[in-house]
């Protein structure tokens, strides 16, 4: 069952075709990898899907069952509320807020009370806030961050910041999660831990995941399907094994001796 489909997705910056005519399908429940050389346009694809950029041409459709809704060109918050959440290649936490607040903010769309309750702190406000706190803590537990609830995000070690960013993305209860290089700058031991976590949240939240990553040990281990971009176009797609042995991918991206990982 399709969850997201991009058709002829194109984005150019001035003369530069960062993404050109990309067709891509992500099915419900899949874990798909998106790889490619630096500057290939991976992050730009994410930015197009999440509404950070409007595509130059092409469409993006998000499916809810059989019902499809085009989402390209919508504002990012609308897309988030439609069920797509992301992390950033350069971590973008609310650095000066606490870990708990980072997650609570992302729970915003599930809030049920209105302005009146908020100004007067009516019982409804109290109930809902309590729920938000409880749910946030639950979420943080998954990432072992519940002990650091009141830390400022900036004071977390780098790896935990990556984790917190994923937790924050999950707080908006997405159907589709986009992860942009979650293992960058994380050492191999922690990368292994990360792949565990990705698997776990996928199971727990019934998630579909699209993942950008240069660390092949992670990509090849957990992705079910992989798209490879080069110069803005899809040059290959298929299972990890197919990709590993694809000549074009090897010359453009992997290199001869990187596959042993």
């Amino acid at each position, binding site marked *: 069952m399709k969850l997201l489909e991009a058709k002829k997705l194109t984005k150019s910056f001035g003369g530069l075709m960062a993404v050109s005519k990309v067709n891509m399908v992500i099915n419900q429940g899949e874990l798909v990898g998106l790889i490619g050389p630096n500057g290939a346009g991976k*992050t730009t694809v994410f*930015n197009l899907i999440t509404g*950070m*950029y409007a595509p130059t041409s092409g469409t993006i459709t998000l499916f809810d069952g059989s019902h499809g809704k085009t989402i390209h060109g919508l504002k990012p918050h609308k897309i988030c509320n439609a069920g797509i959440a992301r992390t*950033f*290649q*350069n971590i*973008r936490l609310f650095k000066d807020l606490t870990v708990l607040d980072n997650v609570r903010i992302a729970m915003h769309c599930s809030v049920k009370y209105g302005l009146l309750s908020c100004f007067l702190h009516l019982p409804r406000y109290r109930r809902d806030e309590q729920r938000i706190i409880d749910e946030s803590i639950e979420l943080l537990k998954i990432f072992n961050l519940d002990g650091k609830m009141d830390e400022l995000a900036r004071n977390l070690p780098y790896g935990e910041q990556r984790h917190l960013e994923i937790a924050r993305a999950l707080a908006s209860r997405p159907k589709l999660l986009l992860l942009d290089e979650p293992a960058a700058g994380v050492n191999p031991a922690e990368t292994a831990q990360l792949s565990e976590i990705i698997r776990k949240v996928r199971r727990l939240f019934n998630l579909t995941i699209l993942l950008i990553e240069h660390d092949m040990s992670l990509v090849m281990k957990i992705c079910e399907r992989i798209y490879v971009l080069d110069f803005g176009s899809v040059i290959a797609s298929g299972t990890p094994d197919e990709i590993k042995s694809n000549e074009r991918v090897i010359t453009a991206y992997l290199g001869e001796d990187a596959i042993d990982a």
Partner: protein
Amino acid sequence: MDQFIQQIINGISLGSIYALIALGYTMVYGIIKLINFAHCDVYMLGAYIGYYCMTFLHLGVVPSLLIAMILCTLLGVLIEKIAYKPLRNATRIAVLITAIGVSLFLEYGTMYFVSPQVRTFPPHIVKSMSAGIKLGNINLTFMQLMIVSVTVLLMVLLQLTVKRTRIGKAMRAVSLDVDAAELMGINVDTTISFTFALGSALAGAAGVLVGLYYNSINPLMGLLPGLKAFVAAVFGGIGIIPGAMIGGYFIGMVETFVAGYGYSMYRDAVVFAILILILIVKPAGLLGRNVREKV
């Protein structure tokens, strides 16, 4: 027609004054992202220094101008060292409040010493400066010519400094990333001081010229043109040197035409209304590029 041409001349000379002050705002803003409220007070002090040179030391216009520029340069650097430098790591708005403090200090310090009364320059100097050309109904004074040419000249020089010279490159690097600039071997403190020195020298020159042109100075004389110049700088795209000039001329022109064609009571309102409309279309100012941060 005559009237129209005259109004253009009026607009250009008024605009030059805004531009001259705006250049200083934009320089300092460009490097440390600070709206240096004290800038318009350095301008005011420049005017007073010029005044005292001419009135009590009986110096001519040029030496007075030079002295004012030198003293203002020192003052600008001093202000930076005392009031802004310790706040390098503080939020921008904290520095802004400090700048307001410095501005109040200069205004009221000056007022305490020289009283709030207006001062005028010695009549013989004023007279010699207000000579001009008359073409039919159109008036053009040497002062106006001088202010316009000084403004354009300084703009070009500044732009060249920033774009072409080593120190200019250093200024831009510092403005983007202090640490990285230091790693390139750039002396960050010197670079910032240099920027303040440059901006303040400009303010000093502007103070003397404008003071002479209108022949009226007082301790609060910086407020009004300071505000307008600041608006001009933002309008052109703050931090961009040609932007400051275009902004200055724009505001000067709009003011002149609104006032000149019978709406002087609504002048400021019209200026701001146009400004807002333009900002809505070009949110980063006329020359500013509205780059959405890449994520």
